[in-house]
């Protein structure tokens, strides 16, 4: 009862009426619910979430999985990157070989009907199915991205929060180290490390890259901790006798989680671009393994004659990076308490009429 009267006092104080609409929407919701609600209103972010989920599902279910070496889960795609089917001759434009069989134009529009065909993305020089290669590349690039992201996120959050919370000498030492690391361009570190250890496998490479990618995040987290630890609720908790551990995990971290999640998504999209760039200049994933950057690098010379070898891996890199960027944008909007949604004309009118009615009733 008390709460309701407070809300109504507030809403009469607010002149514009926009705040009233916003406040009414989040009345009685938990922080998580508010964030979720705001996120799902961001149309581009929701579309992106759907896109990235589909890419992950399609790529990771394409081939056979062996669980514990015994149970075999069959993949849905007929070829694997190791298969060597017969190269498609003949019916390709400009006397090329291994052209894509995917067709998106329905029959009544003069196409061949919607269908994947035998080799939807075509075949490479020796006849390997390019769809299978792109799927394997997507798997590699996605896993490298996730590994880099999770290692960098963990390190960044731990270092940043320790430095920000304890301040003093610990902070000075950690942040000087971050200063040193941040001066070295990631592409140089990545190249140095990747050139030597790229042949040890994509996951190993990703772990190493993750060890160097956390610096920016740690600075951000430190700044957030520095400002949050001076707030009244932290003082209150300390006076009430809370331990440092409890203050960090129960009071500060939940308040910093918005900043962390947003920058981790940006870190992820940076990571996939880094991996593909490194693989492209030959310092990342090395053959016979497959990665999206590597595929582009291997077939860029055949662009003039067989452009599909270039388009499809690029399309997947862009879709993944773009989706993650949009999800990050949606999350930023969702977590930002100052973020005001654009109020549509109709809602404004509704609220105005409601107010007029209320005044008339008074």
């Amino acid at each position, binding site marked *: 009862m008390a709460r309701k009267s407070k809300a109504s006092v507030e809403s009469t104080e607010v002149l514009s009426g926009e705040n009233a609409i916003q406040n009414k929407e989040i009345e009685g919701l938990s922080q998580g619910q508010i964030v979720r609600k705001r996120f799902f209103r961001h149309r*581009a972010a929701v579309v992106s979430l759907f896109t990235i989920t589909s890419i992950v599902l399609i790529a990771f279910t394409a081939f056979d999985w062996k669980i514990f070496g015994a149970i075999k889960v069959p993949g849905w795609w007929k070829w694997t990157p190791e298969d060597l089917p017969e190269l498609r001759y003949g019916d390709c434009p400009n006397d090329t070989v291994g052209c894509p069989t995917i067709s998106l134009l329905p029959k009544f529009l003069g196409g061949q009907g919607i269908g994947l065909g035998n080799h939807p993305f075509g075949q490479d020089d020796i006849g390997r199915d390019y769809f299978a290669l792109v799927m394997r590349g997507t798997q590699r690039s996605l896993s490298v991205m996730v590994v880099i992201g999770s290692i960098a996120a963990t390190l960044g959050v731990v270092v940043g929060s320790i430095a920000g919370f304890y301040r003093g000498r610990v902070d000075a030492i950690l942040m*000087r*180290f971050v*200063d*040193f*690391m941040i*001066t*070295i*361009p*990631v*592409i*140089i*570190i990545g*190249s*140095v*490390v990747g*050139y*030597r*250890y790229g042949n040890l496998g994509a996951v190993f490479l990703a772990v190493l890259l993750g060890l160097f990618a956390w610096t920016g995040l740690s600075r951000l987290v430190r700044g957030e901790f520095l400002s949050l630890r001076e707030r009244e609720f932290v003082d209150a908790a300390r006076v009430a006798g809370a331990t440092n551990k409890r203050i960090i995990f129960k009071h500060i971290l939940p308040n910093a989680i918005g900043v962390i999640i947003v920058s981790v998504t940006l870190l992820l*999209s940076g990571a996939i*671009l880094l991996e*593909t*760039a490194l693989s*492209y*200049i*030959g*310092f990342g994933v090395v053959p016979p393994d497959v990665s999206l*950057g590597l595929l*582009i*690098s291997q077939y*860029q010379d055949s*662009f*003039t004659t067989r452009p599909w070898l*270039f388009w499809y891996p*690029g399309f997947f*890199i*862009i879709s993944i*990076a*773009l989706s993650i*960027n*949009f999800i990050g*944008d949606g999350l930023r909007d969702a977590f930002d308490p100052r973020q005001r949604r*654009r109020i549509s004309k109709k809602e404004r009118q509704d609220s105005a009429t409601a107010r007029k009615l209320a005044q008339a009733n008074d």
Partner: protein
Amino acid sequence: MVAFILRRLGVLGVILMGSSFILYNLAAISADPLADLRLSTDPDRDAKILALTRELQLDVIPPLRYFLWLRGVLGIFIGQPDFGTGRDGLAVLDSLALAIPVTLRLVAAATLLAAILGIMIGIVTALRQYSRFDYSMTFIAFLLFSLPVFWVAVLLKEYLAISFNDFLREPNIPFNWIIGIGLASGLFWASVIGGSRKTFWTTYVVAFVASSSLVAVLGMTGWLLDPSLGPIVVLVLSIGIAFGVTQISVGLGNRKALGASLTIAGLSVVAFYPANWVFDNYASALNIFLMVCALITTSVFIGLAFSKIDRAPIVRTTIITGVLSANLVLIDKFMQTWKPYMQTDAINYRPVPTVGERNDLLNSPDFWISNLDVITHLFLPTMALTLIGFAGYIRFARGTLLEVLNQDYIRTARAKGLSERTVIMRHAFRNTMIPMATILVADFAGVIGGAFITESVFAWSGMGTLGLQAIRGQDLNLLMGVFFVTATMAVLANFVADLLYSALDPRIRVGSGA
């Protein structure tokens, strides 16, 4: 202030030492310069290994070897820096001296272009917040963010260079292209200008007709093979520039500023033939520099002559107009060079190059032809870097301007009845530029690192190529040389950005409490 700068420089020195120590050890552990020798079946293999070990001091463990390297580098302070020798036998310092100007040229062009375009579009998106233009630009910015630079570079090579060169052989612009360009430009201008539905469609039609007929005329007259502006077009464009600059800078209501701008614009056209005479007979960088100086002095005098009170804005407007309209004369000269440039044997009617930073076969003594060659080589890599870079500027300029527009002093400015132009250009835009300026400087350093990939795709022999060569050849000295230059620039750029911030923003005082 001096004490502050000195202290900061000291800290920067420490940071540089720390990061170079980390990278040196990392690279020394990862690289094995003896690897290919070990595998060789040469009879004097062991002797060679010994010789190389002695030469590269491989018997010293990396953390200590770093200090040997550092001793050479610290020679900078006594004027004798020694970055060691690369494995190709060249002094690292010499390789760097060749590579630095090449990279700087690329990075400067790309950063500048990205910043100007990005800030302009960012401001328009902020002023049209939540419009269709805003949404589509946001989408484009995110798309550009997500593009791998090597992918864009290969696309540009294929479609802009090779296809454009093919097209230049028979430059007939097909009809659907004319219509398409018209439609696109109509959409662009109509969305930028915005307004009611009626203004939208009027702008759309005007822009459509103007640009498609322009493209059609250019195609029919073979302008692309022998472009030029000529004094008439220069005159018309200069008058347009005079009006535009005056409107944006002080408003058309200021008749004195308008008069001064129109005078300097007219003067640049009067100077068209004399300037071309100088260009033809005494072309050199020094002479062009002198002409720019003369131009600016004239602008200042004209501005002063026209104004009595409130002189600074009028002089500023005059200078901007003067520089822009004089640029038209320079651009016209380069356009006139286009035809002789294409006719040279080295170019042979394929003017857009895909590799290298200059055409070695082109041995022209002509100042204009060799400079045009540099410009055409800059074309594709700059575009690749700009496309990737300017997305960030769009987002940043938009965010900053929106934040500024929400401030109380903007409301005050509007409330006291200032024109929208004054509110946006004087009160909002200037405050937006403070963080933008610092970002620009920091970005400049960042792009140097980012040019690694671009340089490798376009086969430029700049710092990036040198760095890749160092890593592939396990060449520690060369790698450290490249890193040292890149890192010094990055660190100094951040320092300059800090100083700039405090110089531009009176709320921030350097040295207080630091």
